[in-house]
């Protein structure tokens, strides 16, 4: 429901010093009054009407608020958090004009310019916000991010550390500090911050992957697998899960091929599979390959020879390595160009050679 806020003022009661002291009732007065109220209400939402009644010598203002009833800053911030930065930008720009010293408006605009890739402008706005409010945690974090994205890693790091002085457990400050330390290849320091991040956000899939990567860089790759597995188990955005799975596959492959030798066990698994495929249609082989591929999305420990799996499309129990070998051989029958994430081409050639 729209609501109206209205009022009237006598010509004599309008503070003319606001519009340069024109004579009351002059054209300059009328224009100045209209501009004054238009500026006040511009960009606020809803609509404003200014009626200047020369006969009654009154100024009437009718402001119909927008139907949402939400104040413009709140509306802009909500739009921003929903990703509608194109809609939030004009509202915030208007608000900045009216309240140039509002740190929240400066911060919100800073976030938009980060998104738009104008890091210098974002940093300028965020610095202004921090001049007004020295303890504005989110502005320090955003400024840190803007500087890092602009390539100023050390400056960005400094702002993030300031944010952490205000709140040592701020998730975004910790997360971005971890990322910048990783970027700077300061892995030992990054490890400390990643651990702190996971302590405040134990479900942060990206940080689990970062933890695994950091451990790899520190030569502690034995410990990294559990973090990739946790990431897959926890779930999250698909691109992150794909990264975690790719890391797991790469790890498995590197263990599998550590000695750069042909794995005879894999060759044997493939030979057996190829024998089975001989009496099968292409569709049946596809079913086997796809069933194993689906199973693989949950993670197959190909270096664990004790654990076995049952699949619907083939009788018996199989180790993960055996399943992956069967899958590789199966894909070679109907889609040899497919990248299944592990290179067993040498073993496949050996299996088909005899």
């Amino acid at each position: 429901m729209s609501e109206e806020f209205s009022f009237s003022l006598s010509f004599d009661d309008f503070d003319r010093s606001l519009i340069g002291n024109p004579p009351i009732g002059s054209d300059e007065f009328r224009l100045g009054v209209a501009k004054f109220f238009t500026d006040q209400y511009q960009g606020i939402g809803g609509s404003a009407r200014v009626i200047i009644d020369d006969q009654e010598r009154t100024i009437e203002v009718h402001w119909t608020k927008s139907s949402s009833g939400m104040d413009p800053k709140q509306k802009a911030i909500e739009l921003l958090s929903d990703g509608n930065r194109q809609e939030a930008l004009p509202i915030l720009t208007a608000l900045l004009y009216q309240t140039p010293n509002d740190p929240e408006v400066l911060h919100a605009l800073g976030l938009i310019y980060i998104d738009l890739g104008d890091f210098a402008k974002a940093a300028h706005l965020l610095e202004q916000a921090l001049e007004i409010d020295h303890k504005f945690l989110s502005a320090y974090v955003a400024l840190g991010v803007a500087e890092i994205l602009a390539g100023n890693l050390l400056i960005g790091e400094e702002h993030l550390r300031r944010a952490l002085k205000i709140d040592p457990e701020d998730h975004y400050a910790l997360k971005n500090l971890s990322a910048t330390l990783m970027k700077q290849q300061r892995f030992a320091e990054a490890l400390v911050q990643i651990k702190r991040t996971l302590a405040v956000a134990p479900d942060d899939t990206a940080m689990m992957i970062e933890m695994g990567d950091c451990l790899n860089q520190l030569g502690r790759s034995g410990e990294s697998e559990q973090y990739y597995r946790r990431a897959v188990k926890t779930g999250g955005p698909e691109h992150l899960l794909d990264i975690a799975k790719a890391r797991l596959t790469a790890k498995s492959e590197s263990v599998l091929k550590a000695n750069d030798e042909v794995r005879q066990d894999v060759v044997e698994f493939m030979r057996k599979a190829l024998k089975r495929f001989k009496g099968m249609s292409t569709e049946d082989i596809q079913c086997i390959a796809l069933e194993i591929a689906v199973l693989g999305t949950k993670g197959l420990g190909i270096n664990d020879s004790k654990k076995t799996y049952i699949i619907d499309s083939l009788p018996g129990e199989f180790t993960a390595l055996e399943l992956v070998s069967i899958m590789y051989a199966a894909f070679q029958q109907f889609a040899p160009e497919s990248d299944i994430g592990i290179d067993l081409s040498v073993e496949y050639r050996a299996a088909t050679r005899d």
Partner: protein
Amino acid sequence: MDLKELQQYFIDRVEATSGKNVLLQSDPKFSGHATIRVAKDNQPAHLLLYKPDHEALLPYLVAFQCEFALRTILAEPDAQFNLVLKPNMMDEFVKLMAKHFKNDSTMPAGAVPQFSKLFSDGLGHQLRSMPISMRIDRKLHEKFPELHSMQRKSIDIQLQENVHSIGPYAKRSAPNEIVRPNAMMNAAFAKFFSILWDSPPIFSPYVAAGYAQDAAKLLEIHKSIPNEPEEDRKLVDAWGAYTGLDNWYETKRR
């Protein structure tokens, strides 16, 4: 908590703190939105009156009035106070009004004292309650987001009512000595909410009418005095001194 439970929560607080019940009563003749009459020692219950027109906002009105009552109940006995008229007040008021309506045929001379009483009650009530109400509203805004929408609606109504104090009708109804302090306090009230809600248009009428500085000064006083109920009397005195209303009103220990 839903809004009904929240409303009861505020009533429970007053009852638990004072040991007396709160009676909720709708009164169509009541001129404001709601008020609470805190029970005196010889009275068995507190009476919370509200106008049925504002029933839709009752949880907020009850929350506000109960918080107002709690500030009185929780204040040290020495700090509890009433606002009373100074002996010269009614005489001066009536004289000012009579002078104002001297050539106005719409106001019979006999009606001036009654009209003056109406204005003096309103002005006194505003001085006693407005600076404190802003403290309560800030608290409700910060701690009870469930009430945001009702608070906004209720305050919007008040803001719309208040803004007439700078319009031509107010100037016709009373002399500047009476209209000006009223408008100064309304300006401070509007500025307070324009900041709280980040909604500059609420305050712009008062800027246009030249009250920006007075509003800023009253809010500065408001900010400089601690928020404790014991300081409420000091706050009312300070607003009285700035607006000049201390010539007519004074605070007295309850």
